[in-house]
């Protein structure tokens, strides 16, 4: 047993973006030709493969819309009989409920990350009360219209 097996990991890529769809992200992974398994889901993707490959792939996908694409680890590999709905007679798999609750919060978290990033670029000049900037007002209107 001198041959060491590469560590296999699985990650969720949860997409809460207006620009990127799960199918776009999946296509991007197929184009990259990394030897990883991709499963498209309603909330995003499940990717599984060697640790280095997955980290590279995940970073590439995140760059598509970095404040609106979220990533977390998954313990079970995709299609695992102990978790897969196909072998458990349907219904949401254990662990999905919490993910679903958090997915509802992601647009707000993404907007907060956008704001945080914008603040890093533009140092806040006035900390006292000041007039609302037209650019900020435009942003608010656009967000409201996009709903």
């Amino acid at each position: 047993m001198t041959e060491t097996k590469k560590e296999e990991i699985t990650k969720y890529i949860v997409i809460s973006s207006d620009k990127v769809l799960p199918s776009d992200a999946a296509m991007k992974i197929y184009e990259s030709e990394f030897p990883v398994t991709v499963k498209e889901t309603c909330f995003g993707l499940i990717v599984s493969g060697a640790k280095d490959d997955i980290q590279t792939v995940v970073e590439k996908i995140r760059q598509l819309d970095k404040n609106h694409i979220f990533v977390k680890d998954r313990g079970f590999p995709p299609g695992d009989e102990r978790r897969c709905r196909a072998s458990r007679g349907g219904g949401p798999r254990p662990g999905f409920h919490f993910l679903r609750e958090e997915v509802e919060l992601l647009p707000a978290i993404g907007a907060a990350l956008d704001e945080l990033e914008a603040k890093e670029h533009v140092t806040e000049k006035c900390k006292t009360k000041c007039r609302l900037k037209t650019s900020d007002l435009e942003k608010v209107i656009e967000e409201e219209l996009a709903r």
Partner: protein
Amino acid sequence: MSFLAKVFIYPLNSLILADLVERFGHKPLTMMSQIREKVTSLSLDSPPINITPEDPKLGLKYAAIEVPAGVRGRMALIGPLIEQTEAAIIVENPPTNFGCVGCNRTNELTKYLVRSKGVPVLEVKYPESNEEARDFVHKIAAFLESLPKEKPEEDENAKEDQPTEKEDKR
């Protein structure tokens, strides 16, 4: 990939917290990594039954024998994470608390152990509106940026050496 600090998150399986911690360059200590070891380890005889005789013994380190077995079983997974903790983010009032994080006694014990460990702890509430989400992200970002920037190299090296030793024994 080198991380700055190992950050314990509560709820242990939170997507938002795990992502934010990783986004700011730290390593989240999550239940998923512990579960992965359990379900993919070749040393398990019957993988659907994921408990080994060693697990209850490990759980006894954190909870007494009269404590329900579920608490000890969970602590067998969560306890090693608490030992590695260098900082912690505890989010109160999570929207759902069931599944692997569904035991309230375990959750209380976990939070108690983390708080009494003496590491920097950030306690926030789960956001319910856009304004709260903004505060939530800003607080977490400020906390993660305030953590020490140096990374002890020995820990990483020691961890990498361990699996090779095990393989040699087999």
